[in-house]
């Protein structure tokens, strides 16, 4: 913060006002409202609201359906962001070596960004269809080998593959840019000191990449959740048997299909707390390992 050039009292506030207004209305107000409804019950026939204390939380936390959904959400967050960042990291490391393929790869690896999560769902549901898609011939030989409509594990495998496919571009861009910003001299110095490529990867590239890795992991956790709705809604609809009914999807169905505003708001508060805790934990445990100076 060294620039600070103009001195004016009112003008900067006018400049910020539009952004702050939009953020207040569609970011902070929804959060406040979620907390409001988590502690209130909507009266029937539009009769306003009634304060009920922690009754909504007791109801939500007392249902087994919520707990299985919360567990699935947490597992999905960790596995989905882990698998997509891991894949993007390997691809970025490979593309960082100046190969003939790197140029094309850099362009094509961004293409999935153009495909909406719901479109990916529509496409993968067809490609992985047990009777009509790629696994069809195998399924004819070994019936029941692959069926995401009845087997929860297969359903999750389908979601993860689609999620990795869609999450490659962003992580890839950021990680590759981080790798390319590492000065060539460090590689040379390492090589002169006798460090082989693997050693340099572990002791030079990865430590210097930690700022980018940190950003990518934090954003991917939030992204895996928001993207999961489009995938689930088009691929599994929460099934089979509620196995992929992640909180994002459950809140949507509770709120918009079952009209349970208070229940949905209570779960929204819990989900936001979950994301906040996971992000906070990343700051505590990961940021310490981040080296910003090179």
């Amino acid at each position, binding site marked *: 913060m060294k620039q600070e050039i103009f001195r004016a009292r009112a003008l900067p506030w006018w*400049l910020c006002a539009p952004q702050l207004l939009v953020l207040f209305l569609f970011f902070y107000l929804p959060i406040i409202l979620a907390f409001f409804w988590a502690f209130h019950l909507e009266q029937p026939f539009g009769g306003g609201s009634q304060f009920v204390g922690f009754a909504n939380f007791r109801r939500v936390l007392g249902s087994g359906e919520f707990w299985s959904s919360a567990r699935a959400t947490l597992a999905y967050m960790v596995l989905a962001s882990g698998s997509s960042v891991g894949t993007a990291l390997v691809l970025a490391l490979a593309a960082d070596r100046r190969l003939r393929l790197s140029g094309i790869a850099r362009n094509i690896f961004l293409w999935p960004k153009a495909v909406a999560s719901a479109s990916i769902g529509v496409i993968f549901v067809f490609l992985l269809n047990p009777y009509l898609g790629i696994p069809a011939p195998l399924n004819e030989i070994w019936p029941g080998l692959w069926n995401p409509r009845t087997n929860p594990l297969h359903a999750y495998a389908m979601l993860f593959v689609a999620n990795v496919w869609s999450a490659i571009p962003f992580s890839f861009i950021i990680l590759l840019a981080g790798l390319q910003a590492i000065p060539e001299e460090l590689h040379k110095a390492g090589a002169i000191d006798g460090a082989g490529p693997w050693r340099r990867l572990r002791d030079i590239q990865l430590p210097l990449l930690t700022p980018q890795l940190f950003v990518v992991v934090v954003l991917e956790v939030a992204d895996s959740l928001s993207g999961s709705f489009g995938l689930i809604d088009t691929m599994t609809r929460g099934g089979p048997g509620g196995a992929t009914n992640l909180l994002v999807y459950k809140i949507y169905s509770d709120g918009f299909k079952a009209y349970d505003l208070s229940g949905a708001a209570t779960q929204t508060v819990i989900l936001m707390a979950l994301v906040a805790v996971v992000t906070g934990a990343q700051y505590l445990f990961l940021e310490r390992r981040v080296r910003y100076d090179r």
Partner: protein
Amino acid sequence: MIENSRSIDRWATAILLCGLVFVLTPMAFVIVTATQSYEEFLRRNFSLIPGGHFAENLREVWTRTDLPRQTLNSIIVGAIAATGRIALAVTTSYAVVFFTGRGRGLVYALVVASIMLPLELMIITAYQVTANVALPLNALANAGGLWSALAGRPLDLQWNLLDSYAGIAIPLMAQGSCTLILVQFFRTIPPQLARAAIIDGAGPLRFLWDILLPLSKGPLTALGIYMFISAWIQYMWPLVAASSPARTMAVVGLARLQEEGERIPDFPLQMTGAILVTLPPLILIAVFQRRIVRGLTLSEK
């Protein structure tokens, strides 16, 4: 690279090839399936032999489904959301980077915090707010029965933005990533530039309009394209915010093609729709790849 490490380069090439196959295979299958007719598809099941029916499928998508109009909706919402996000981000970043005064850090923190919680997480209450944007005004006026005491009954303003272009696009702007990137960029601009402008008698707004904006043209277009694509690929918010077919966006329309209820879905038609819905942002990405990457990472390499 430094030493002669052929074997590593071979591994790297193999990894890149695997990645390319992984990314391109689904696209190839989509294109092949889109060229088959429904009958062909049923007879042969899944096959890699292209048919000659792409034009027919395209005509059917164009005439029998709502996708053409929905594509137009996506263009409109994408344009509004992208321009809006850029405009909001430019003014905020300008105020944060170039002005002295209290509260800058707080504003920046408030904006950047919004990156952590996507709109999808608070969909229910965001929907409530959009259904009546006057909600906070009502709440403020009615606090402590103030308005009832003055006017005899509680204030009850209604301003429903659901099912309008603004109602779909504006909540998509409530996200601070654009500001984060622009603040980083503005910080790389030498302060001497602004000092020189002051000496020449230019005020802050004049400097913004005549010097800073022309200077930032490159990053701003890249960001604009990226934000347009980000709005285009939204699914959950457009799904709940637009209830009438006249405001449905293309991606939502594509997902609804799935539900038409035949026993074996018309996959060739769906895949043709998927091509139609994906092609505009895909072309933008393929053409502007370098600019987008530069805009997002602010690196010249």
